[in-house]
């Protein structure tokens, strides 16, 4: 399984370094944070490094156009980024022109290794929006063919609310429809949106770390991959190995919490502004968690295997910078996925379950050593992962 960088605000040289250090295999660039005029410049700087580059057109954010608190960045500078009248989306007349325009924008940059088709956000599996989104997906490859694009794979965007994954029969029907398209894309770019935010406007992690959501996300990857599609998961972060075990082609993570957990709320200014900068964290593969740097120091003293034993660990010996934190995250995910994703779903799921059990044990030892703060939340996330795997097995009818 490949690990991609999820591009966002303030990239600096993180992508270049990630590619150069070979801790990422590519990047999902953000149209919101990349002005079309300056895009070539960025793509050029990434070119010397081997890696797959995609551009998320973020068309789903058009639902925020015109809102007084919208936070759309450079999106409105892109030609395709305007909201068609809803009636033209329902009748389908606007869909091909939007896809064509988004593809034309991407084709200006020859460095992109594939085309990501635009789509809207699906809040509910049996809604009109789901029908519109399916139409976008069904038309993507068709439009690429009419534009004679044959040298780049076409990825359809599949942007779903976490509630869709837990909706039962409508979700199954959606999967049935996705796999039965007459002109299917080559792959999918999947984003799962959380809804809940805390009083500071931060996403609540348990919104995604929920057994039904995890199982549903795994099922999407499984169903699509067994039917020959490449699946790239945006903002999948620590869930990447679970998705990789189910056949995902790639998972992605970034340097901000909004790049590790997707939400449509990112396109809206939070009510509360300001606040302190997020603390530097360390991804511990043994704990299957992202822990604060101070905790990393404390836990390592009682449990040395909290460290991943990777070259990027050296960044945490002194003052750690944001770019270094990103490199450490990607390096850790890369190692974790390499160990857990071997194209044998039965053994991979068993491996991950084994790691979850071990992680629970490690957290117990940490708690017994007197470091109890926040441990309960980690237990809950691990429990959600374990239950998610179990539920996935049931939904995927695996024996």
């Amino acid at each position: 399984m490949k690990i991609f960088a999820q591009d966002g605000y303030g990239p600096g040289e993180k992508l270049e370094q990630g590619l150069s250090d070979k801790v990422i295999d590519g990047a999902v660039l953000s149209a919101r944070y990349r002005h079309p005029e300056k895009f070539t410049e960025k793509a050029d700087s990434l070119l010397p490094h081997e890696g797959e580059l995609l551009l998320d057109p973020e068309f789903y954010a058009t639902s925020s156009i015109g809102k007084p608190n919208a936070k759309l960045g450079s999106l409105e500078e892109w030609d395709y980024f305007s909201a068609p009248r809803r009636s033209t989306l329902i009748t389908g007349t606007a869909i091909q022109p939007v896809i064509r325009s988004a593809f034309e924008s991407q084709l200006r940059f020859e460095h992109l290794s594939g085309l990501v088709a635009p789509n809207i956000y699906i809040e509910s599996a049996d809604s009109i929006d789901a029908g519109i989104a399916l139409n976008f997906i069904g038309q993507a490859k068709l439009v690429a063919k009419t534009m004679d694009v044959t040298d780049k794979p076409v990825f359809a965007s599949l942007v779903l609310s976490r509630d869709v994954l837990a909706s039962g029969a409508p979700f199954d029907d959606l999967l049935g429809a996705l796999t039965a398209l007459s002109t299917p894309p080559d792959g999918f770019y999947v984003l799962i949106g959380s809804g809940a935010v805390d009083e500071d406007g931060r996403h609540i992690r348990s919104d995604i770390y929920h057994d039904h959501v995890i199982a549903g996300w795994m099922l999407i990857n499984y169903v699509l991959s067994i039917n020959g599609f490449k699946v790239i998961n945006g903002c999948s972060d620590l869930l990447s190995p679970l998705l990789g075990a189910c056949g995902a082609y790639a998972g992605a993570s970034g340097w901000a919490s909004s790049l590790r957990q997707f939400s449509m709320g990112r396109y809206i200014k939070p009510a509360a502004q300001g606040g302190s900068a997020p603390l530097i964290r360390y991804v511990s593969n043994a704990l299957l968690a992202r822990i604060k740097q101070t905790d990393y120091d404390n836990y390592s003293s009682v449990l040395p295997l909290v460290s991943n034993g990777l070259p990027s660990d050296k960044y945490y010996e002194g003052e750690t910078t944001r770019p270094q934190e990103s490199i450490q995250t990607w390096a850790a995910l890369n190692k974790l996925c390499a160990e857990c994703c071997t194209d044998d779903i039965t053994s991979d799921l068993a491996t991950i379950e084994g790691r979850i059990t071990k992680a629970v044990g490690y957290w117990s030892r940490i708690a017994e050593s007197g470091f109890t703060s926040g441990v309960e939340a980690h237990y809950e996330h691990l429990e959600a992962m374990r239950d998610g795997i179990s539920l996935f097995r049931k939904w995927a009818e695996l024996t």
Partner: protein
Amino acid sequence: MRIPIPNTEQIKLLLPDCAELSYVASGGFKVVFRAVNGVGKVEAIKAIYIPSESDGLAPEQIAQLVARAQREIAALRLCRSPSIVKLGSLAPKLVTLGSCTYLIYSEEFLPGQPLVEGVGKQPQPDLTTLMAVFTFLVDVIEEMIRIQYLHRDIKPANIMVTGIAERPYVILDMGIAYKVHGTELTQGATPPGTLRYMAPELLSPDYKDVMDFRCDLYSAALSIYELASGLHPFAPKPENDYATIYRIMKERPEPLENHRGDLPLQFCRIIDRCIKKNPALRYARTDLLCHDLQEVQQ
């Protein structure tokens, strides 16, 4: 209801060019005769009884029956695959025999016996036979996709084992074929078909919204499972329909490898995948299925 079966003398009068006319079988509203046509070719003469209101059927039910027969003939006309039974020389026509009306037409007459007669018999079919039957069924499904129909009644009883080298297997009976973009013929919440081979999604109230070729794929793979193991995973013994429905909807079948450890695991897994309850877990493209079957052969 029991349908009136026309006698061979009545049919002979209708079809004076036919010789050696004999009764073969009847089922549902259909009666089948064997005959040699005017150019010496053996054909199956099919007479579909068209009931009247005196049979206790509502006018719309009668209209549905006629439309279904016409749809079957229309579908057969479109088929080009040798895996599907061909129409014969007698074009469909409505005839009155005594006080009864029939729609009469002919199909080619296929020698041999239905596959169902081999189910549960020893020796169990080997991989070569199972692959041949499954490949044939995939060909049928691809043809159905091409003509935009669903067969909806694939089962061992509808597969003829002909003994002809070029066409060892032929599928019969498109009587309940579903036209993908056609007018709905079935009223009510349950589709027609043979319950034991019906895909789970066909048992849901909104089956018309979700059914596609994967329900034929399910029935095809279930037929192979039954042929290979000698057991029907959801109706192992005679029981009431409710029990069968429960099993189809809820029970996970035993992996085929548990019954046939001698078969390649990869083949067993292909069959197991095609009979998953959630259609999204089955093969969504026949080319992927064919690719996996080729790998088994290699």
